[in-house]
């Protein structure tokens, strides 16, 4: 069965998007990305280190011609900064597909939805295809969809917290009302968290810290790949109905008496 993951005009095989932050070095990042099977990696935009010509560049380790770079706006707390970063990112590689995150405060890294909505509207007008990190709020997600976002990315729990999917019901509700992909962004700690997100019907998951901060990141990257695949197949299989009482698995017919 073909199961293509569409984001705007683009199509992908893997439903796992991986972040490239927090690794020991770029060699480890590249190995983890490869093990994850991801077609898309998130990247941040920062100043070039002009005092150290020899400082390695991410592009030397992860080839943007082979893996889709998804520029993000990590660290932006207002729409002006976010717009500036994404305009630069687009010029750098011609990438229209971007991840918008406008943060509310440093302690929670919760999205500032007022700024996020404002920024989404401008980016859509500028022909960006915008994937939006957002609160787990079905109304806000619908507003983003109406503004023209190509995907909504509600958090499962706080960024980098590893608390897993704390909001199964709201994530499910968001998915049931969305006509665009829903991707759980943030909170995932282990493979089963990713599976749960996929079993809820989400179209994909974004994982960074769970892989980068595992003791064996490359092994965890592979685990995430398999768990996303398992969760997706489980969701598509049409799960059995729950029952409050036991139902025997073996027939009583021809039982010896």
């Amino acid at each position: 069965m073909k199961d293509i993951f569409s984001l705007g005009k683009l199509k992908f095989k893997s439903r796992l998007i991986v972040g490239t932050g927090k690794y020991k070095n770029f060699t480890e990042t590249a190995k983890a990305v490869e093990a994850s099977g991801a077609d898309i990696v998130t990247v941040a935009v920062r100043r070039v280190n002009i005092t150290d010509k020899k400082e390695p560049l991410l592009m030397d380790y992860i080839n943007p011609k082979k893996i889709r770079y998804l520029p993000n706006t990590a660290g932006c707390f207002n729409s002006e900064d976010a717009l500036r970063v994404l305009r630069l990112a687009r010029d750098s590689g011609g990438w229209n597909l971007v991840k918008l995150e406008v943060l509310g405060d440093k302690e929670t890294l919760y999205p500032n939805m007022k700024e996020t909505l404002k920024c989404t509207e401008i980016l859509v007008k500028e022909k960006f295809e915008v994937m939006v990190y957002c609160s787990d709020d079905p109304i806000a997600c619908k507003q983003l969809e109406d503004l023209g976002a190509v995907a909504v990315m509600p958090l499962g729990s706080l960024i980098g917290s590893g608390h897993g999917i704390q909001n199964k019901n709201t994530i499910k509700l968001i998915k049931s009302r969305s006509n665009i992909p829903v991707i759980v962004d943030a909170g995932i700690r282990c493979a089963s968290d990713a599976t749960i997100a996929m079993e809820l019907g989400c179209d994909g998951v974004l994982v960074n810290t769970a892989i980068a901060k595992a003791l064996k990141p490359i092994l965890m990257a592979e685990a995430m790949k398999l768990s996303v695949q398992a969760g997706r197949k489980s969701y598509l299989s049409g799960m059995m109905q729950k029952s409050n009482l036991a139902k025997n698995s073996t027939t009583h017919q021809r039982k010896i008496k």
Partner: protein
Amino acid sequence: MYIVLNGKKFEIHKKDTIHHLLKKFDIKSSKVAIEVNKVVIPREKYRNFKLSEKDRVEIVTFIGGG
């Protein structure tokens, strides 16, 4: 004359272009994006884009991020 490059004062020659600046730091244009005074400068303009006194220049690239 000087410009402000990535937040720091930097001396350049009067007729220097963005292309000259990148050459000075041995930076490949394909791996960066540049804005001057908050306006993104398209790559094809680097060669002829002359910098002016006190221009605020940002040279950015991609780093690891989530």
